């Protein structure tokens, strides 16, 4: 790990927060429409109704906030899921959360001809929640309750089922494909600030509670038996973690569509930086997740200007080399 002492970690946390803010201001200033730093400051202090000011206030600002919030949520959800399932490959998309949301949106488009992005938010949140509840129940049946193995398998099965049904609808219905293809790729652009504020309470609750249970997640990661022996109510903790995961990843997918890869990469990257203590991993993962998504989103504007690349594509393109490097270097050294 990179940061070995607690004072170094505090410094790192501060630095990461600073970097996140810097990236957010970059995201506000740089884009297709030429704007300067002065314009950006003026847009908030002395708004004059010019085109640039409107773009900064109503397009760039929501976009920056959404990227930061979604990135942070997905990363934290990934950390919790990997601990909950004791599987380094676990991520929100493997637990049917993205697939459930995608399926709900495709149903809404092809059966009820809804194409309102605002409405997609609630439909996909619902789909994500329903699918994760299914997975959780199926993973919990039986005498010994929720085991990592059963949860993993149930998640993979449900995810495959929803994904294939989504594909089925899209194969039959080409117009729906056209409408949802961009949504399915995941994007943080073209969303209003209201989209974020609608789910922000859920996301914020997820962030706060994930920090509160961080210490207990450390105990859980030592194994079920040890955790029980130390007096931890594992059943309650796992249920709590499950609810937090739904809030975070359901909220994220509702705002930005299914953005893959973040939820699996960031936890690994974070552990390479700060070690395996959840009290540090969770805040760091949140910040790093926000940073990666912001960088990906800024890059997405410049690659093939004036068109935009879906940000889900850019996270993979930027994140993969890092990830391969870290994986080669070894994780827990």
């Amino acid at each position, binding site marked *: 790990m990179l940061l070995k002492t607690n004072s170094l970690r505090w410094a790192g946390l501060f630095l990461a927060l600073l970097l996140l803010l810097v990236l957010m201001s970059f995201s506000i200033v740089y884009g297709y429409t030429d704007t300067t730093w002065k314009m950006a400051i003026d847009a908030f202090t002395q708004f004059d109704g010019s085109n640039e000011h409107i773009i900064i206030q109503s397009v760039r600002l929501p976009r920056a906030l959404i990227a930061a919030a979604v990135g942070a949520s997905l990363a934290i959800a990934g950390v919790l899921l990997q601990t909950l399932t004791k*599987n*380094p*490959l*676990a991520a929100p998309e*493997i637990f049917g959360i993205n697939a459930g949301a995608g399926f709900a949106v495709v149903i809404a488009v092809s059966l009820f001809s809804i194409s309102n992005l605002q409405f997609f938010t609630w439909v996909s949140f619902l789909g994500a929640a329903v699918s994760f509840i299914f997975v959780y129940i*199926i993973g919990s*049946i*039986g*005498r*010994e309750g929720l085991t990592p*193995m*059963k949860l*993993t*398998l*149930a998640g*993979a*099965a*449900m995810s*495959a*089922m929803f*994904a*294939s*049904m989504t*594909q*089925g609808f*899209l*194969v*039959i219905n*080409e117009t729906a*494909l*056209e409408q949802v*293809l*961009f949504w*399915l*790729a995941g994007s943080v652009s073209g969303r209003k600030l209201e989209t974020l504020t609608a789910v922000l309470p859920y996301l914020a609750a997820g962030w706060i509670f994930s920090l509160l249970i961080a210490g207990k997640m450390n105990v859980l990661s030592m194994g079920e038996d040890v955790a029980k022996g130390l007096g931890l109510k594992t059943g309650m903790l796992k249920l709590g973690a499950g609810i937090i995961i739904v809030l975070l990843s359901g909220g994220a997918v509702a705002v930005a569509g299914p953005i*893959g*890869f973040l939820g*699996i*990469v960031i936890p*690994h990257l974070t552990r390479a930086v700060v070690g395996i203590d959840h009290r540090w991993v969770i805040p760091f993962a949140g910040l790093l997740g926000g940073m990666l998504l912001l960088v990906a989103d800024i890059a997405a504007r410049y690659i*093939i200007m004036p*068109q935009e*690349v*879906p940000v*889900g*594509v*850019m*996270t*993979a*393109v930027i*994140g*993969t080399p890092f*990830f*391969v490097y870290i*994986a*080669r270097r*070894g994780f827990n050294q």
Partner: protein
Amino acid sequence: MKKYYNMRLFGEKVSFLIDRRALMVFLILTASVAGVFIISTGTGEMKISPLKVLQVFFGGGSDMERLVIQSFRLPRIIVALMVGIALAVAGGILQGMIRNPLASPDIIGITGGASVAVVGFLALFSDENNALTVSINWMPLAAFAGAAIVAFLVYFLAYKDGVSPIRLVLIGIGIASLMKALTTLMMVFGPIYQASQANIWITGTVYGSNWGNVAILVPWTLILLIVAFILARNVNIQELGDDIATGVGSTVQKYRFLLLMVSTALIGGAVAFAGGIGFVGLMAPHMARRLVGSAFGALLPASALIGGILVMAADLIGRTLFSPLEIPAGVFTASIGAPYFIYLLFRTRNT
């Protein structure tokens, strides 16, 4: 009653145990494969009774029935069977080798590589009217090349004094996401017609299979299958972890490479002709594990048969349920497989 039979062959040179329960499961599954095969052959726009189907197999039946069965239905059903077998066995090997229940052909990027190759193929070799400028017969080759290149890339990137399973799979996931990103990119910016063509391929379908495909796929899959079964006991050892495997005298790295090559070749063949059929490679081995336990001697044949049944049944449903509309088989592998798998999870809940 004894739980195992003892088999000795070639003057006691080769010996193995046969699990009674696994044998029973194996027989039932074989019968189901035959059953689904015959029913699927007889079902479609023109219905043919199972008895007639058997007659046609042995050279009887009317000319019309022979034509329908031999030139339209048999090729695609055989391709479906082979694809199911190949994906399931490859998935089983990968899960054992990587020691992770989530390992599957999709997750380590092999299928993703094939998808990129196919979408790229459609984009490169199409003119303005979306007509292909080269023969569609080159598409399987493109898919196979994509799968093979990605498999080597993943192995190469994961190599550092040998390949550890976790490094292999994590790098595989990274590359898989990259491939998926590239696929999405090309689909979003290409014309919508190509996107929907590509979408059908990614979902996976055995539509339009012909005897030419069968002639390549069947020997390819069967030879690799035999190799896989011979290597099966090495999967058992790999599953114990590197230290124990080395301790009992297995050359871990050599067999890991061999096993990866065999599964890549199996997957490559399957995706070349049927596209990215999901779920089978992931779930068929789990179903088999619930039925026969986790010793690979029994697990691989059982998952092969389950995989074959899944894809054949999915194809049957895909071409009959919404007839005359054809739904790609890949849509239904998960829809029929997942409920059964959840039932199995439920039934074996106390083990």
